[in-house]
């Protein structure tokens, strides 16, 4: 039976100071299998992968790959053995061409010099084999969409004759169409006989693409299950170790009759370059407005316009009844707007500063007396929100970087909550956050709306929008493709609008 396993990891243990990250974990992947590795954040998925790829050294256990016992000591070595990893954050050289990224480090040579013609034609043929065409392989990588960049990463792995592809959250920044393209590629990879380890927080994707799932919890193996034996609910229950019914089926009071309340945000005809075109948005106090749209639909641009980070070419914004001329985020903040970026790491967190400092960064003026910052007041605010939001931390002094994604997000939310905003803009607030924390953040958002704050929430996860929002605006190619009230919200309707709007031949529906 061992022969049909490409990878067999047995009894893997790995401890970090104070934490047992992996305890006696077994994990095996068969030839030509797409195997999901599931678990909440901190369950040990990444650690297991890092042990496999040689970034971490295991404390105990054995790794057998392609019938040979291996112990890689760095990424290059495991790559050489046929294990390629496509990371969450793309690990390619952004300024080099697509073709080069595929071949760098082992460029085909002619007379000892790099043969650019061959590189480019081979890159095209590899991408072609994957079903990806129409890519200008000689242009720098960063001029292409994230999806194409991802394809380049996979092409690189395939050209390295990878027997095992590890994909860590490959779809986290892809639109659904792009994810579909990725799945086609994965199916082709599988058909070639390579195996795939697929890590994703998106349950529906796992069910769509994987044959088998191994579930980890708290560094221990829960079990390996054929996909056919699992349901979403069962999988979630196994991952969080308790009955998940309550998590996935949150009841929302449908239609709270909020439309007659006073508008906190009234935006008319927002336009900016080619990204957003004549978008109208209304949000009443206490209302949660969802913005659905694919990548490039203008959803993030919309959020940034409302936060003053991008300046609109045309249109008017009214916040709390007064005309707002937003030219910088400071203008927006002064009017009571808060904003959580989709990119927590780059635009939110100060990783080396404490939880307390992260939380109070926006209200240092209020916490100071005569220009002197009161540490006591800072502590008080931090402790209040740590308790209120249930932030899991050893204390206000813990370094932010040590917190899990979900808890970091809570701290960032607290940063705005303590400024008492009237309008809160949340761009992908639940990206890369595990399920338990997700539902807690949903609660925080609902609570915020309950206090009369207007919330604008962007998400590429339809389920999140459907669960949380009172009203959903669908954007497509920079235009408002439609709007759904609480009663009308359903996945089908949203998809319909997304699809409808994405055909330029048809006139976009302006629901008003």
């Amino acid at each position, binding site marked *: 039976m061992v022969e049909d396993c490409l990878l067999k990891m047995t009894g893997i243990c790995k401890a970090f100071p104070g934490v047992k990250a992996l305890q006696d974990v077994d994990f095996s992947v068969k030839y030509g299998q797409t195997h999901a590795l599931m678990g909440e954040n901190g369950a040990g998925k990444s650690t297991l992968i890092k042990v496999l790829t040689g970034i971490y050294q295991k404390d105990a256990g054995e790794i057998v790959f392609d019938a040979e016992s291996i112990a890689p000591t760095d*990424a290059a070595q495991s790559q050489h053995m046929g294990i390629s*990893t496509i990371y969450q954050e793309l*690990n*390619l*050289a952004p*300024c080099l061409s697509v073709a080069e990224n595929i071949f*760098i480090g082992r460029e085909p040579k002619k007379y000892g010099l*790099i043969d650019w013609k061959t590189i480019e034609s081979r890159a095209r043929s590899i991408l072609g084999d994957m079903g990806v065409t129409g890519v200008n392989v000689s242009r720098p990588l960063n001029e292409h969409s994230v999806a194409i960049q991802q394809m380049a990463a996979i092409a690189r792995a395939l050209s390295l004759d990878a027997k095992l592809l590890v994909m860590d959250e490959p779809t986290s920044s892809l639109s659904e169409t792009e994810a579909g393209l990725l799945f086609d590629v994965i199916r082709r990879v599988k058909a070639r006989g390579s195996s795939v380890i697929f890590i994703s927080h998106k349950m529906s994707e796992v069910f769509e693409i994987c044959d088998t799932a191994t579930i980890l919890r708290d560094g221990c193996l829960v079990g390996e299950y054929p996909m056919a034996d699992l349901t979403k609910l069962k999988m979630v229950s196994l991952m969080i170790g308790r009955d998940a019914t309550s998590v996935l089926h949150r009841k929302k009071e449908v239609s709270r009759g909020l439309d007659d309340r006073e508008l906190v945000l009234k935006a008319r005809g927002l336009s900016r370059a080619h990204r957003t075109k004549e978008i109208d948005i209304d949000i009443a106090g206490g209302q949660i407005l969802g913005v659905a749209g694919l990548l490039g639909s203008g959803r993030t641009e919309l959020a940034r316009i409302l936060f003053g980070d991008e300046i609109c070419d045309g249109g008017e914004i009214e916040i709390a009844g007064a005309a707002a001329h937003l030219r910088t985020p400071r203008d927006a903040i002064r009017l009571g707007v808060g904003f959580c970026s989709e990119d927590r790491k780059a635009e939110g967190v100060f990783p080396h500063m404490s939880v307390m400092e992260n939380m109070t960064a926006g209200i240092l003026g209020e916490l100071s007396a005569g220009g002197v910052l009161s540490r006591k007041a800072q502590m008080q605010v931090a402790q209040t929100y740590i308790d209120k939001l249930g932030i899991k931390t050893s204390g206000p002094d813990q370094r932010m970087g040590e917190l899990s994604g979900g808890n970091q997000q809570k701290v960032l939310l607290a940063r705005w909550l303590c400024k008492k905003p009237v309008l809160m803009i949340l761009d992908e607030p639940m990206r890369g956050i595990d399920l338990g924390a997700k539902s807690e953040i949903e609660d925080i958002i609902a609570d915020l709306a309950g206090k009369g704050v207007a919330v604008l929430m962007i998400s590429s996860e339809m389920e999140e929008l459907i669960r949380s929002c009172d009203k959903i605006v669908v954007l497509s190619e920079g235009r408002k493709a439609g709007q759904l009230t609480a009663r009308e919200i359903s996945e089908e309707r949203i998809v319909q609008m997304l699809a409808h709007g994405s055909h330029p031949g048809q006139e976009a529906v302006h629901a008003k």
Partner: protein
Amino acid sequence: MKTDSATIKTGVIDTVKSQGPLVMLVVLCVIAGICFPAFATSLNLVNISRQISMFGLLALGMAFVILSGGIDLSVGSIAVVASIVALQAGRWFAPAAVVAPILVGVAIGAFNGALITWGGIPPFIATLAMMLGVKGLAFVLAGEGRSAAAAEQVVNVSGWFPVIFRGDCFGIPYPAIILIAALGVAVVVSKYTSFGRSVFAVGGSEEAARMMGLNVNKCKMLVYMICGGCAGAAGLLLASRLKAIDPTATGGWELTAIAAVVIGGIPLTGGLGKIGHVIYGVLILGIIPNLINHLRISLPPWYNEMITGMLLLAVVLLQSLIAKRGTR
């Protein structure tokens, strides 16, 4: 359908973006030609080419370092130590005067590289320390206990040694030939070798390069060794020119070299740019003092650095404005 004008517009921006340094060089030459008729004479051009050869070599090596995302502040000190080594070694064994300075440069560069890779010291700090240390070494080698002013001493050299700097071939000075050859090699290495490409990858994202299985440490070591070697070669030219030991001869050269690289269109963040364009930066910085020199009645020489600084600002400002435009 995108409009044609938009395509043309991006085309123009692309051209300015990629050929900006050349455009600036041409503009500067035209100004120089108008203000100063003798500018385009072969005598003047030959002089300029001799003057730029040394810091041109420094800039080429520096370009590799900056492309890889690093910085090397020690090149001026390396050059001066190399020049002293050339003169001292030449006293023992004549051909050593050519080989030794370059080897010394490579060795110091390797030490820089080791500090940065294995030592994990940020390049700025490591090479700053080396800049001071190596400069000190230059004074020690020049002769114990000498003050800066008294340290200059003429050395007896073989008759062929000054020719390296003074000589020419069909009117083209040897230093210019050396620089052009080095430029050619640098362009080929950067574009057509695995090492050259890995420099760009490391400069773009070190983490990504590591994850792609590239040998990042080896790449960085090589980059600093090349930079050191180039500085050593510049030191050789310096020795050949001075025929004397002067530990203070290269003060500020490292900054001029960095300026030339940046004016040539390679941002200090690395990973982006063309080594070949560094020569434009070198020429621009070479022509400015020449121009000021010829206009000395109306413009005293101390305007030199001011104009260089303003020019550097203009270039960087232009780059950042274009980059801003590009993202819109």
